[in-house]
């Protein structure tokens, strides 16, 4: 249960060229909220997430529950924020279980080693992602999607109140996509996990996140409920794409679903 507050967060790359990857981003994500970051390639989604975990230099403030992240040690921050990178570095000769156990690092003393409880947490996470059968296999011998789920398992084993996901389901089949996102949704409801995720699948982003923020060239173009952010006109302007946006309202619950369907610009052969 933690609030994440970002104020004027700015990320620039290069001493001379000065790419402004994230331009004065301000937002507050509350405990139990799921913020979806969308936007075209190079919009600054990953840079924003990387800044929060201190992997890129940045200006502005990042606070968790009123405490500046800048002033925390790596260990303190790791206990509060779990991060799934867009391109994780996978050690081929490590088993899935050993890898997921690394998520327990923030809780293990400097000279300590993992306890039975750490192992139990990892076993449970692996089970919830139906990864038990892969637990003792080497990562180098898993498929791309299996690996991606193991990376998610590591982040969940970290049991941090804030979860940052950078394209966590890009390699997953439709069934495992749903499984992974449902699991995150459940943890968010149950443990009031704060989630920020960068996603390219706009329909899934609309379905699972509570709020969407669209970035383009480092700036916020739109922010709010999926139904307001995802309009065909805006998608055409930002992504240079032609799409149909369907809104499908459930008669019983009154919940609406936003479905983004790409359209061919040329007539089908």
């Amino acid at each position, binding site marked *: 249960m933690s609030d994440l507050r970002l104020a004027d967060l700015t990320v620039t790359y290069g001493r001379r060229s000065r790419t402004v990857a994230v331009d004065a981003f301000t937002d507050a994500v509350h405990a139990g909220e799921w913020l979806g970051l969308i936007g075209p390639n190079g919009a600054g989604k990953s840079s924003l997430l990387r800044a929060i975990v201190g992997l890129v230099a940045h200006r502005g403030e990042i606070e968790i529950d009123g405490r500046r992240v800048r002033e925390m040690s790596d260990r303190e921050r*790791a206990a509060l924020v779990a991060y799934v*990178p867009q391109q994780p570095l996978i050690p081929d000769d490590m088993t899935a279980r050993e890898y997921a156990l690394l998520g327990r690092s*923030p809780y293990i003393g400097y000279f300590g080693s993992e306890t039975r409880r750490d192992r139990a947490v990892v076993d449970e996470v692996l089970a919830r992602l139906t990864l038990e059968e892969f637990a003792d296999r080497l990562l180098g011998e898993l498929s791309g999607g299996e690996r991606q789920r193991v990376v998610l398992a590591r982040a969940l084993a970290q049991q941090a109140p804030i979860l940052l996901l950078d394209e966590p389901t890009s390699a997953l089949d439709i069934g495992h996509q749903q499984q992974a996102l449902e699991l995150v949704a459940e943890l968010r409801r149950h443990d009031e996990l704060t989630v920020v995720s960068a996603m390219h699948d706009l329909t899934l982003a609309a379905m699972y996140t509570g709020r969407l923020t669209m970035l383009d060239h480092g700036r916020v173009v739109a922010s709010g409920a999926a139904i307001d952010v995802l309009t065909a006109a805006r998608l055409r302007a930002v992504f240079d794409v032609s799409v149909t946006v369907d809104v499908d309202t459930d008669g019983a619950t009154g919940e609406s679903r936003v479905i983004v369907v790409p359209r061919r610009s040329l007539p089908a052969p």
Partner: protein
Amino acid sequence: MDTARRDRIWLIAGGAFLLVAVVVGASTGPAGPDWWRVPAELVNRLPLIAFDTGVSEAEWKIVWQIRMPRVVLGGLVGGMLSIAGASYQGVFRNPLVDPYLLGAAAGAGLGATIALTIGRGVTASWPVDPVPTIAFVFALATVMVTYTVGAAFGGSRSGVTLVLAGVAVVSFATALQTFLLQRNLEVIREVFQWILGRLSGATWSDVRLVVPYVVVSSIVLMLHRRHLDVFRVGDEEAATLGVSVGRTRLVIVVAATLGTAAVVSVSGLIGFVGLVVPHVVRLIAGAGHRRLLPLSLMGGAAFLILADVPGRMLTRPAETPIGVVTAFIGAPFFIYLLRTRKVAS
């Protein structure tokens, strides 16, 4: 947990291998008692056990004063180089790295060359041979230069810059050393003998010299086994998992360097061990550092003790340098292992 039990079995196997190597090392050599009497005599010398093995006091002296220091020193050197090599490889995530990477060997070589060229006239009458001390100081100083250069350009966060800085500093030190040798051709033989590495003539006082460094260094490295596993996912992800990458790397590098510098100054540059023993252990027992570090320590010790045996027997006309023997035995074995593993998987 099952893995813990398997870890223990591996440790016992490693310990047994080391014990066998020690007994073989103590039992072989020119002169001395029949080889098969030595294991019995070793048991006999344990407290509370006494029986007659037919080994005379004079023969025992050969075993204890000539062979044993050499065996123990070989074990310390081999173990230290291997555990340091495994740690260096882990912390830089680079399988081609050996403990000489950041200049410990080049620095020691330069120090020894300086001591042997410039200092000989002065130090010949000293009661203690100053060469190891000077080599040790130079080894540490060289690694310090590498670290400073690397940190200045890439920040301590980047392992790659550090490796590149090592390449530059090592070349520089080697060039200096070559220059010195060129000007002092008369010491070339002596310097080369030093560089090629040797365990011959080892005494208990040599052992006493390196023991503290090897013990401290190994303990510190062993305590960082888990950190080395976290390093396997890369500096960035390690940082998000709560490891202070720069600081932890510094601690590991300092510990590995201290031990390496100490053994290099006493025994010269014994190559190959620090590079290959960790790889062999990885191929046999897996890549996790929980096993890799202790098994490298024991395996490296056993390997060097055994590698020293043929060198001792082939003493005519001159003793074969141990570095040559390690490469002769180790390289084919390593290739064989790579081959069989590849076929198996």
